[in-house]
């Protein structure tokens, strides 16, 4: 087990940021801490890094008790949402920082920095200052800087949160490839469920300082433990009192065997997928996901009255 927290609790004044949180991350895995803002996911990451001291509970890194260990001695690499570049140093100097303070030989530092800059695709930009880089480049520099001392554990705090959507998607795929190359145990904090599902082997879903569910992305999506997990991971519609994924609702043109009646309010074409927004008989609104072919076959027009049948519903106590 590369990372483990046991019953970690952390309060800021009256606010309980972490309430008895126990998680584990396997060696070489990529785990996402997912949750809305205020769920405690960043605080948990900072507790693992040693940047916050928990009020109670223990932290183990690579089997070693690390709760009272200073961040300098934990062997973790930390990447901040806003990159935290050393602005007065060049990209090379930033990446070399950890090696320089360890007084490694100059030739070794040069070779390692070259290797890292290649790894994060900043090969020709070593002489630039952080201010001369784009957001995505700065974040890759921060990643190289964190990887330089060969940490046992890599901790990423919303690393793509400050980037625009396109760059974020690119970096996500790139991070997954990087992880496949380096196999450094990684914990990624994100509020974006799509990001967590795309990148992580395992997701720890948090809310209000507690762990709601832990599992591989597919498990969270298909067998959510409770209402919160169901609504947070993936889109959801309500039919009657039950929750159902929008792609698990069938639209029927006759009332036979249906679960209810609804009127088509809007039809949104999103390429392969078509989203039909409906007003149910009880006044609630829901949406249904169809493939383009299904939508074409139904010949739906806004204002049509249709019937719905839910294929896989969930009711939480």
């Amino acid at each position, binding site marked *: 087990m590369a990372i483990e927290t046991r019953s970690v609790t952390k309060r800021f004044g009256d606010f309980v940021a972490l309430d008895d949180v126990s998680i584990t991350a396997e060696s070489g895995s990529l785990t996402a801490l997912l949750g809305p803002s205020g769920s405690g996911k960043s605080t948990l990451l900072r507790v693992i890094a040693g940047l916050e001291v928990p009020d109670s509970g223990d932290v183990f890194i690579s089997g070693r008790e690390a709760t009272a260990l200073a961040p300098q*001695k934990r062997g*973790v*690499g930390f990447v901040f949402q806003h990159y*935290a570049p*050393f602005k*007065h140093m060049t990209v090379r100097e930033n990446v070399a920082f950890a090696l320089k303070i360890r007084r490694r030989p100059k030739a070794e530092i040069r070779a390692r920095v070259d290797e890292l800059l290649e790894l994060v695709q900043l090969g020709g930009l070593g002489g630039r200052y952080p201010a001369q880089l784009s957001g995505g480049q700065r974040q890759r520099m921060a990643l190289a800087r*964190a990887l330089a001392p060969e940490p046992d554990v890599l901790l990423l705090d919303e690393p793509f949160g400050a980037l625009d959507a396109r760059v974020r998607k690119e970096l996500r795929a790139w991070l997954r490839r990087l992880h496949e190359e380096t196999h450094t145990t990684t914990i990624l904090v994100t509020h974006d469920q799509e990001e967590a599902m795309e990148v992580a082997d395992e997701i720890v879903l948090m809310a209000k300082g507690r762990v709601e569910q832990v599992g591989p992305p597919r498990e969270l999506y298909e067998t959510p433990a409770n209402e919160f997990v169901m609504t947070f991971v993936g889109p959801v519609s309500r039919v009657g009192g039950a929750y159902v994924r929008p792609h698990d609702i069938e639209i029927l043109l006759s009332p036979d065997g249906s679960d209810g009646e609804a009127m088509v309010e809007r039809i949104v074409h999103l390429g392969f997928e078509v989203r039909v927004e409906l007003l149910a008989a009880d006044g609630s609104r829901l949406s249904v996901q169809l493939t383009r072919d299904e939508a074409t076959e139904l010949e739906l027009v806004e204002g049509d009255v249709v019937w719905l049948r839910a294929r896989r519903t969930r009711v939480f106590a």
Partner: protein
Amino acid sequence: MIGKYAVRFSALGYVTVILVAPVALIFWRAFEHGLGPFWDAITTPNAVHALKLTLELAIVAVPLNTVFGIACAIAIVRYRMPGGGLVNAIVDLPLALSPVVVGLSLYLLYARDGWFGGWLTRHGVQVLFAYPSMLLAMLFISLPFVVREVVPVLREIGIDAEEAAATLGASAFTTFRKITLPAIRWAVTYGVVLTTARVLGEFGAVSIVSGGIAGRTQVLTQYVQASYENFDLTGAYAASVVLAGLAVATLVAMTLIKPKEERSGHRDA
């Protein structure tokens, strides 16, 4: 257009009347009879002693207030300590308090029947009317400048880079030296310049605690006052010119050591 020129002329006119004219007059009066009398006036033993004492005080007071100013600023911004807000407010006290009041409070503290004065006198330490009290006065009145310059910059740069350095294995001291200090260096420089200017120009507090004995406990500002009162106007003007010269030299030094890009505006490093 007219509005723009009106603002320019009134601003320039104001500066001319309030600032430039009196200083120019001092220079004119000092050199009215040529360089000879000016040189004679500033090389009298008392004038030389006053200049030396002023510089000696500055050389000790400025580094002390720089080091403690940076420490204070870090304590105020970085540590959530109880009473942090109070410390922050107290640091400004010398800016709000008249130097005369500062001098008086030091006098009361170190007088023979004061809180500290009695004990120190019994142990043979002379504070009042001597170098120590003058240094204390200088330290008191020039404390806020480095703190005030550094605090907003520390707030602005945030804690991310320092935390990043810590996770990379840097000790607290290494982080301060390699990350924090480079980021606040211009704020520190500016604070040092202001502190120096304030120390060189100090009069109110020092004149109460020093006794102003010519050739012994008289700084340059007091020398100007004493010369003026003794109708030695050339001496007063000449010493004033030296004070003004020191102030200008400090400002020039700051402009020269700042890199070019930063001269035009206030930019964080």
